Structure formats: C-alpha cells, structure tokens
C-alpha cells in the first residue's frame, strides 16, 4: 500500500514519459532495433566467412611453407589462433548488439502496452549496453597505454 502511494507520488511530482518523450523513445527504439539487426547480420557474415575461410588460409599458409617443414605446423597454429581471436571479438560485439536489441524491443512493447516493468527493463538494458562499451573502452585504453609504454621502453633501451 505504501509502495503504491509512493509510485503515485512520483507520478504527480516526478518525471514521466509524456507525449514528447514517447515520440522520441519510439523513434530511438526503431533505429536501435534496425542497428541491432544489421549488427547481427554483419556478425553472422563475419563468423561464417571466418569459419569457411579458415581452411583457405590454412592451405595458403601450407603452400607458402611447403619448403619449410618446421614452419608449417606453426603457420597452421597461427591461423587457428587468428580465427579464434576474431571469433572472440565477434562474440564481444554480439553481446553489445544483444543489449541494444533488448533495449529496443522492450521499449517498443513498453510504449505500446503502457508497461512500467518493460520500460524499466528496457532502461536496464540501455544501462548494461553503455556500461559494457565503457568497460571495453577502458580495457582498450589500458592496452593502448601498455603498447605506448613498451614502445618507449624499447626506444630507450636501443
């Protein structure tokens, strides 16, 4: 009962999704859904071409290394490592698009059915999306800083 009166309080004096906000969010959700679907298709194409192209790259490396028997096993290993590396990146990006898709779909349903629960779930996915990108960016920046430090140390030692 108390919770209910609190919700009504925030309704009367707090922020709400009015007609203007509704229009903006509808449009945002539409574009976000489109982006997510394009992203899914792109990732699927990349994954398929990586797996299908893997054997091609392996045979290419094999041909290059046919006179070098020691190196051929190494080259195949490198190819597999590269493919796994790119598949991992594809998986990382896939999760970002999944959160974007969930934001868009929940927002659309929330606005259509006036559902507070779906609206909150949609905003929660938007939060996860930005937090995810933020953490990935921080990791990228750390790697970049390490790279710069290694290069500077290498120059200093020369």
């Amino acid at each position, binding site marked *: 009962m108390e919770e209910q009166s609190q919700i009504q309080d925030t*309704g009367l004096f*707090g922020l*709400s*999704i*009015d007609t*203007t906000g509704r229009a903006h969010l509808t449009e945002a959700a539409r*574009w976000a859904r489109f982006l997510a679907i394009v992203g899914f298709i792109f990732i699927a194409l990349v994954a398929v071409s990586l797996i299908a192209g893997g054997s091609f790259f392996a045979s290419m490396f094999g041909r290059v290394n046919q006179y070098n028997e020691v190196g051929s096993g190494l080259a195949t290993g490198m190819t597999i490592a590269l493919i796994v590396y790119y598949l991992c990146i594809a998986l990382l990006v896939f999760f970002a698009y999944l959160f974007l898709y969930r934001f868009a779909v929940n927002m659309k349903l929330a606005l259509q059915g006036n559902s507070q629960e779906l609206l*909150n779930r949609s*905003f929660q996915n938007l939060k996860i999306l930005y*937090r995810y990108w933020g953490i990935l960016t921080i990791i990228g920046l750390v790697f970049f800083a390490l790279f710069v430090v290694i290069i500077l140390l290498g120059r200093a030692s020369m």
Partner: protein
Amino acid sequence: MDDQSILELQVDQTASKNLSEVSRWAKFLSITGFVFMGCMLIVFIAMRSQIASTLSQVIPGFADVNSLGVLVAFFIIIAGIVFLLMYFLFRGSILIKKGIETKSQDMFNNGLASLKAYFMMYGILAIIALISNFVSIF
C-alpha cells in the same frame, strides 16, 4: 494533463537509477571519443606530408591535382561525423542526468531527443555503409 500523468509511464526510482548510470557511462564514452578525435586530428596535421607521400606511392597519380586537399576534405568530413555523434551522446547524457536531478521534464525530454538523434545518425551511417558495400560488390 494531471489526469493523464497518472496513467502515463513514470520515470520511477529504478528507471532514474538506470538512466543516471546510462548518462555516466555515455558521458565517459563521448569524452573519450572527443579526446580520441582530437589526437587523430593532431597526428594528421603533424604528419600530413608523410601521409600524402605514402599514399602517392600506393595510388598512382595521387601526387597531382590537389590530392592533399581531397585528403584533408575527406578527413574533415569523417571528423565532423564522429564529432556530431559524440556531441549528441554527450548532450543527451548531460540533459538526462540534469533532468532527473532537477526533476525537469523539459530537460529530460531534450535529453531523450538527443538520444534519438544519436541512434538515428548511427542508423543513417549504417545505411550508407551498407549501400557502399553493395555498390563495391557489384
């Protein structure tokens, strides 16, 4: 209007907590984007003659007619697009956060408008990228 606001969807405690965190991360991402863009610009200006000479070796005939001008124009267009994207994200994050803190519906709506503009611009860029990819296939 008051009657309707009871029936409308509310930005309740859960939603405002989530949106505050969205705006915090979005602000961080947009500022990182601005700094990255600035660094790229500095590197480009500092190394423009080297970039032009390298490209002229790869692309024959690049060295003649105003090729550096074309390169600069291309870079400015890309920088402008990225700047605009980051600006929408930054503006959206600031306005949504301020709107929640001061309970200002106007500010909050303007923040949502910026978020919409951000997604819309991203979508249009994706369409352009798709079309250019199709054109290059055929």
